[in-house]
């Protein structure tokens, strides 16, 4: 049942060219160089240290590794991370 609703949503979004991140509540990443990363539609922080940040989303966990990472802002919809970003992994 759930799977079917997802498919319908996907099809509507495809055919009407609506942004998928809004319709299907998918995370949206915006990376500026290697210094600033904005993640929209997150579901909370799992781990935060200077070297790694793990962020939960609807499709899995995003693991960001780098050096001297800082959370610049944290809001219910959006997280901005600054620091030297080396690797972004999606663990689903």
């Amino acid at each position, binding site marked *: 049942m759930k799977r079917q609703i997802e498919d319908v949503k996907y099809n509507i979004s495809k055919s009407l060219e609506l942004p998928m991140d809004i319709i299907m509540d998918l995370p949206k990443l915006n990376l500026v160089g290697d210094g600033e990363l904005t993640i929209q539609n997150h579901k*909370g*922080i*799992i*781990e*935060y*240290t*200077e070297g790694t940040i793990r962020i939960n989303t609807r499709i899995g966990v995003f693991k960001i590794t780098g050096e001297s*990472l*800082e*959370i*610049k*802002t*944290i*809001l*219910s919809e959006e997280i901005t991370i600054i620091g030297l970003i080396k690797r972004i992994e999606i663990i689903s």
Partner: protein
Amino acid sequence: MLAIKIWNYFKGYVIIRVEGLTLERLLNLSAAHDIYLWDVKRLSGIVLEMKSSTKGFRSLKQVVKKVGCKVTIKEKIGLPFLIHKLKERKMWFAGFLLFWAMILFLTSLIWRIDILGNEQTPKEEIIALLDSNNISYGKIKYQIDKEQIKDILNENYDYLSFVSVTIKGTKLTIEIKEQDLPPEKVDKDYPCHIVAKKKGVITKVIPKNGKAVVERGKVVTEGDILITGILTNEGTDEFIAVHAEGEVYALTRYSSIIREPIVKNEERYTGNSIIQKGIKIGNKGIRFIRGNVDFKDYKEFESEKSIINLESFGIKFPIKITTYEFREIELEEVKQDIDFLKNSNYLEAMKMINEEMPSDVLVQSKNTRHQVDNGILTTQVIIEAIEDIAKKQIIQNKED
């Protein structure tokens, strides 16, 4: 970003240090509770440092209770905290305000009155006159009416040809220009020199008071001292200042040159014209060019018309439509009669000299010279006359 920083400064924020084990949970919960946190830094495995608004910090307490960690305030930054601090240091704040109030007050007073250009009117007299009209040192400059000063001066001294009053900082400057006074009108209480009104060759000096410093045949220019009012005592080195009086006659020269071309171009409109339109906003304008102006010789006329006519309300509407009209002209050479031209040049020159020359002079000689050069007739009229060139000038105090 700067705008947000300034906004945060005005609202006030705190830098807090959180100690605990499940700090990620704290971040998630505060995000869910709409508590705005920023610049989150990991100091060690169990310590986080972050910034929070004062309002957010209050609601953070509930979250902290749930998570079970320790919060300490590291620093309070922002205007609300500064004001709070100042409330405790009332006298310091009062002193600060007093300082600015004093500066504002002291700079709004008149501390100096300068009078420039007075040669025949003593400075003390003008200052005393202003003083009796409530304008003196230590008055608030915003209360001083410049027009009133001008009126006072013009009423009391009818020989002033120009009065300008400016207030710059704490200095009131009055600049006047005097017409030449008949010498007997100058106040005799003040020492003065007799100076030259204009340049000339001295023919006769009649000193009545003071010591003549020029003699017959000397060439003087405007402003030179003729009869000095400062006398030296022979025995000692003391100076005595007196009110110099006397008459000084000198040979003066008036000349005037008129140039007029013998062949004159006369302009005549042919009746052809081109019209271009433009729009003017304020002083800047755009011209819509349509075709070139093909005329060999033309004159340009410009006229403006407001789009909306608000003249009746006394408002000038800034957007105007301008019309540029180019009218073609034809040039025609006309040769003028030389004798007639000479005569008209002479009359023109005499008119100019008569405007310059006072009526009570003794004309000694009159010379008229005509010269034709490259089709231009040059007429020079020179008049030499003997007149009294004495003018009194009050001796200003040394410290002025």
